[in-house]
């Protein structure tokens, strides 16, 4: 939400550049499109967007993996849920 509101604020700032002097907006535009100039405000935004995409992809994959449960994990989970002794238990007798 913070990111969204700041982004909307930035877009508003850019729109306001045209008034009262349209030249300011034109200068900003020239600088923005020169991606390789290292002063373009677009490049950090693109990199941040990529970062968000990586973050979201990782979380989606993490959640997809968390939905899987291996057989061994299920066995352990069942053991915790079982009562301490069941009617199927067989008494242990020493060998002999």
């Amino acid at each position, binding site marked *: 939400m*913070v*990111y969204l509101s*700041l*982004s909307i*604020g*930035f877009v*508003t*700032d850019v729109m*306001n*550049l045209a008034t009262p002097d349209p030249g*300011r907006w034109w*200068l*900003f535009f*020239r*600088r923005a499109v*020169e991606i390789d*100039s*290292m*002063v*373009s*405000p677009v*490049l*950090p*935004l693109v*990199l*941040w967007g*990529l*970062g968000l995409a*990586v*973050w979201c992809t*990782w979380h989606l*994959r*993490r959640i997809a*993996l*968390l939905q*899987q449960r*291996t*057989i*061994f*994990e*299920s*066995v*352990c*989970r*069942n*053991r*915790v849920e*079982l009562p*301490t*002794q*069941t009617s*199927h*238990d*067989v*008494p*242990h*007798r020493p*060998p*002999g």
Partner: protein
Amino acid sequence: MSSPRKPRTTFRTALRDDLRRSAVDIRTIRLRLFRVAPSNWAVGLIVAFLCLGVWVGPQFGRSLEALMSDAPDGVPMFDKLFRLMVFAMLLATSWGAFRLAVVWLGLRKCLEGFARMPIVTAFDRLPPRLARLTQLSLPGPASGTAIGAVADLQWLHLQGIHQAKKEEFAKELGPDRAELTEVVADLMKEPAAQELALTSRGRRALVERLGTLHDVLRELWRLEPMKADVNALIEGLNKEFEKPVPRGGEEASTALLIRRGFAGPVQLWVRAAEEYAGTRMVEYVEWVTRHLRELALFMLLSLLLATLLLSSYPYPPQSLLRLILLVVLGGTVGSLIFVLIQMNRDEVLRLDRPDRAGKVTWNLRFVMNLLTFVGPAAAHPAELRVPRAAEIPLCVG
């Protein structure tokens, strides 16, 4: 006065404690993987970043955008956005490194539990291609399928052994354990084919099968050594001591010789059953390792993007921000190296070289893993050079 009655030990309750201990560790790992804050120590990381924000905040200068805008408070939205981006990126990377270390510590505790079980000797005997899956290497082919196929084959072998030695099996266990013999016979009727695994009913059957197998194994471990094993051990040691230079008993303890022996049909079946159960345990370890791998890849990409972000726009105090990034980078690389080395040394994860447990093995795979994950991260400082003023084009107008 009569002595207090001892609790009855049964073959279902005995291993349940082992599995219960594992269940606690497994639950902890799942929670650490699921929660946004994997442990209470995460609060410390947040506090550290808050303090950092309080310290660095007043030192932020004005960007090129600030020169052009007429924001009322003097700080244009772009500046606020950029500050947020830098801090979020650094926090996300640190968070990833912290999560990696915390999840690994959980897995290590779980592996310590595995190492205490008698089944640990079975890990040495698992196919080498399974060993690769438990290492923090780059994602390979569909690993779950490979493990399932191996487990199917092992179950078929287990059935074959039981079928071939059914009578001897019952005879060796004796009439006192007729019920156990019956449980094993019922268990061996379960089909090996995994078409069951595709449905929830089939999955439940697999879970029950492994649970019962563990119960049976535990009971059979308690019966060790069987009569045939003792005879085979005596015979083997006698033969060894008849040699001019006897070495019997020097290379392995008696307990290990008994554990690794398979003189009778029961011990042969136990050996194969341990391998099946071991494969299912490796399947779980591989699942956690897959999480760690995803996390390590995220950390690498996040570091790369954070470095590019700081280099992409001149923003004061650039040198201070790069110094902070360098510290984060050090923490990230440190946690990656810590996890890689610990995995390399782990007793259970050293499926391919059990004799090297506890020591770092500098083989090609380990070096490749280090280069894959630590190499790119460690190469970042080269990118952290502060540009000279002359290199920044004056496009402000």
